[in-house]
């Protein structure tokens, strides 16, 4: 299967998820073997996903934590 650059950018996620047919998979591999531009694109998609993994959340405020703990205690007492 012949894969264009444009098509490749649409196949990246399916490929990562292992959802391509063997024909598509082969077409992608062949394209990436000669197209450094798409290799760059693929790398950027991977970097994006990697960076998402490290996103910090807002810190949990002490009052919120305390309120939750009180709630937890109440529920627990009620259940016992």
């Amino acid at each position, binding site marked *: 299967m012949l894969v*264009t*650059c*444009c*098509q490749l*950018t*649409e196949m*990246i*996620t*399916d490929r990562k*998820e292992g*959802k391509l047919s063997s024909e598509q998979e082969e077409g992608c591999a062949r394209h990436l073997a000669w197209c450094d*531009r*798409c290799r*760059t*694109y693929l*790398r*950027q*998609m991977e*970097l*994006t*996903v*990697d*960076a*998402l*993994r*490290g*996103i*910090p*959340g*807002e810190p*949990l405020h002490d009052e*919120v*934590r305390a309120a*939750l*703990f009180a*709630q*937890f205690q*109440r*529920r*627990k007492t*009620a*259940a016992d």
Partner: protein
Amino acid sequence: MLRVSHDSSAGAGAGAAADGTAAAPARRVPAETGPLVAAGEPGGAASSAAPECAAHGDDIALVRRLLAGDERAFEQLVTQLHTPMLRLARTLAGPAGAQEVVQETWAAVFDGLVRFEGRSALKTWVFRILTNRARTWGTREKRTVPVAWQEDGEQGSEPAVDPARFDGTGDWVNPPVPWTEQSPEGLLLRKEIGAVLQREIEALVPGQRAVVLLRDVEGCPSGEVCEILGISEANQRVLLHRGRSTLRTALERYLTRG
């Protein structure tokens, strides 16, 4: 004895949600606290899904400590989950409903802990409760909780890359420039990148946002994300693809700005 009223839909069909088949209906409402076990599957821990149970052994241990009233276990639970819960709740119920939904979710979690069996990760189990709480909230407030992910714009036609960057034959005319050439190693770990991504995630349409949050930020496996959001595997992949592609473009814009 306090008991949270569970969604009526989460009763009878509760067990059937966990088989992870792609053919499952898209709008299925997963059980809140029902055991994550396919209907008819024996409930005994040793009988089936042993690898999965083993994988969530830490969660089971944590829940045991929680049920014993261990305060440090409680600390661990809220530290780990409160912020991710808020993020997901904001996506489902908006800023207006997020606090309330999270509050109700915690109540249901505390009540339901005794029923946690470790069939999925504790995080997944909690997120599923949250999704159901958000739907209930939406009904109560007469608001549409954007669980109709399929209606998130024209996903099918929205391309990953601006079509103007390709020529008529699908070759790049405006190709991506490697980020590493302009930036030192580890740039993506820098705090500002996290801030950019956080802002850009907020700007995604709700379906894409929810899937990216669960898959990429929280690291939930694909099958569990489908279950949490009640969407099909194919739909989840489309949303993930659109979301990731949009975020890549945003990072590209940020990293190559004048």
